[in-house]
């Protein structure tokens, strides 16, 4: 593009556009920044009025998030041995002692297992299917592709009723495997559609050359096509992971304990007299941080992945 292009905006236009966009971005940031700050407040600081922007940071929220505590009387507190670590010290100041770990660690681990498990499975199956749709003649391919996409239109609650009954019969309710299969089924439409776009872009000639060199179809697929599609596979994986990581409706309806992920759990962290906001904020921060870092590091791929479907269609 030449620098004299008519469509190139003027310096003043850029300045105005930049200012407005930055203003919007800053407004967008406020709730996120507030979650982050609240995680480092003490419970009284978190509910003071006017809202405190400057405060003495505390790890109380994080300690409360990871532990269960019980209140003890002042006399009992006196007789206890001195606190062994900073966490014990923090809760002692509130007249409490730590009695064990909370369920947060477990729930977070469930999110990791189910998130990564279903991401792996959807990308694996999605890549195979996308390759087949891209390269082979499949009868009624267009209809099949539309069918795959239409599975995404169903409201989760509508699917949840029969899945609930079916899982109860099969012994899959509240299990990791059950949730992995379910999230894979939800994600696979996206995986197939995104990956087909990426694989369509890889020239067929590469594989044909490999086939002539004596490779089997299979070898041509994993030695030639897979490496070429790596970027597409990576960005698809990110989208699948983000969905599985954040999903709430199925998690809340189909799990009750063993396989429950973090999203239904975080809003239930109760303190004295209602939700323990610093602990909720700490949980939210830990839970949101991986995705935020992901988004920032991989922004090029993410932005490409989102707009891809739009351009293709």
């Amino acid at each position, binding site marked *: 593009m030449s620098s004299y*292009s*008519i*469509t190139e905006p003027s310096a003043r236009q*850029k*300045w105005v556009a*930049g200012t407005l966009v930055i203003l919007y971005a800053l407004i*967008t940031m406020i*709730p*996120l920044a*507030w979650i982050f700050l609240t995680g480092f407040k003490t419970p009284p600081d*978190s*509910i003071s*009025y006017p*809202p405190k922007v400057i405060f003495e940071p505390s790890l109380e929220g994080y300690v409360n998030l990871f532990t269960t505590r019980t209140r003890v009387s002042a006399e009992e507190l006196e007789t206890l041995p001195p606190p062994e670590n900073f966490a014990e010290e923090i809760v002692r100041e509130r007249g409490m002692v730590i009695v064990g770990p909370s369920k947060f660690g477990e729930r977070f681990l469930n999110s990791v297992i189910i998130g990564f498990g279903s991401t792996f499975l959807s990308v694996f199956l999605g890549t*195979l*299917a996308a390759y*087949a749709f891209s390269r082979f003649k*499949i009868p009624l391919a267009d209809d099949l592709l539309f069918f795959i996409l239409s*599975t*995404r*239109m*169903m*409201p989760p609650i*509508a*699917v949840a*009723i*029969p899945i*609930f*009954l*079916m899982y109860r019969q099969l012994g899959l309710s509240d299990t990791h495997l059950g949730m992995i*299969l*379910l999230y894979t*089924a939800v994600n696979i439409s996206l995986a197939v559609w995104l990956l087909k776009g990426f694989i369509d872009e890889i020239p067929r000639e590469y594989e044909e050359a490999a086939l002539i060199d004596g490779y089997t*179809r*299979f*070898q041509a697929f994993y030695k030639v096509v897979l490496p070429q599609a790596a970027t597409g596979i990576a960005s698809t994986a990110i989208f699948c992971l983000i969905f599985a990581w*954040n999903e*709430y*409706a199925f998690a*809340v*309806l189909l799990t009750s304990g063993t396989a429950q992920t*973090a*999203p239904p759990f*975080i809003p239930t962290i109760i303190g004295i007299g209602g939700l323990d*906001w610093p602990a*909720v*904020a700490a949980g*939210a921060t830990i*839970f*949101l941080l991986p*995705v*935020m870092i*992901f*988004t920032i590091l991989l*922004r090029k791929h993410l*932005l490409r992945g*989102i*707009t891809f479907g739009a*351009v293709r*269609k």
Partner: protein
Amino acid sequence: MAARATPPSVARRIKGLSDRAIAWIFVGPTIFLLLAINIFPLIWTINLSFTNYRANRPNREVDYIGLRNYERILTDSDIWLSMQATAHFLFWTIVLQVLIGFTLAWLINRKFKGNDLWTTIIVLPMMLSPAVVGNFWTFLYQPQIGLFNYIVAFFTGADPSSFEMLGSVSLAPWSIVIVDTWMWTPFVMLICLAGLRSIPDYIYEAAEIDRASKFRQFWTITVPMVLPFLMLAVLFRGIENFKMFDLVVQLTGGGPGSVTEVTSINLKREAFEKWRTGYASAYAIILFVTVFGLASIYVKALNKVKER
């Protein structure tokens, strides 16, 4: 792993497979999974919708009651109120997200310095968990201590505890519209941006030669060229917001009263609180048919716009 020089026997056997067999091996598992987890349940739901089955009493005898569930749903005023609440959200979230999203895309397309970084920040909310973020917004909306009320009060001079975003019948729907717009405007923005970037420069150059005003260029080139993209974004947002659940559950839980009880919440109540499984199944089918029907009509319109 499989890149050894001498292929193992499994690979040799696969070598004999025709392309057609490979195609089915590759597509098969996906189709099987979707049939098992989407289609089979859908058929099961249709079947249940003609019964008075209750999932919390699996041993009770099940009667087929024909279309009675459907009849009752279509004459139930609560369900029409839920439909109205859903329509209200759909309308306002889409209007706001289209207006703000398009404007942002249009501004970002000016390619000012650092727009990449700011775009990423704007996109962040849509990457996060609606349930977790929605839950935290209830804190921001607290009348006494919440940041949202404080900021609004600061700019309007009102008393921050004089308005309850989540507790008042008139404001609660708007509290959800605000959070949804905050989360999903970036999605509309990204798709519009893709649309804007697909317009070749030479069209504007030609218009410039014809002495078309900037305003005219905007209405006769930019808007029509972006319209198909914008409509696609509206389709995705429409389908998603018709199913809206996480945010509403966390923010208002359907209340106060039932002013924000959207269809998903209403349905969840019937299915998993009142355990009227047969009735809820019929409800689910009606919702599914509605989305599917509206989406099909919309896609037809979209294709017409594209053809122009």
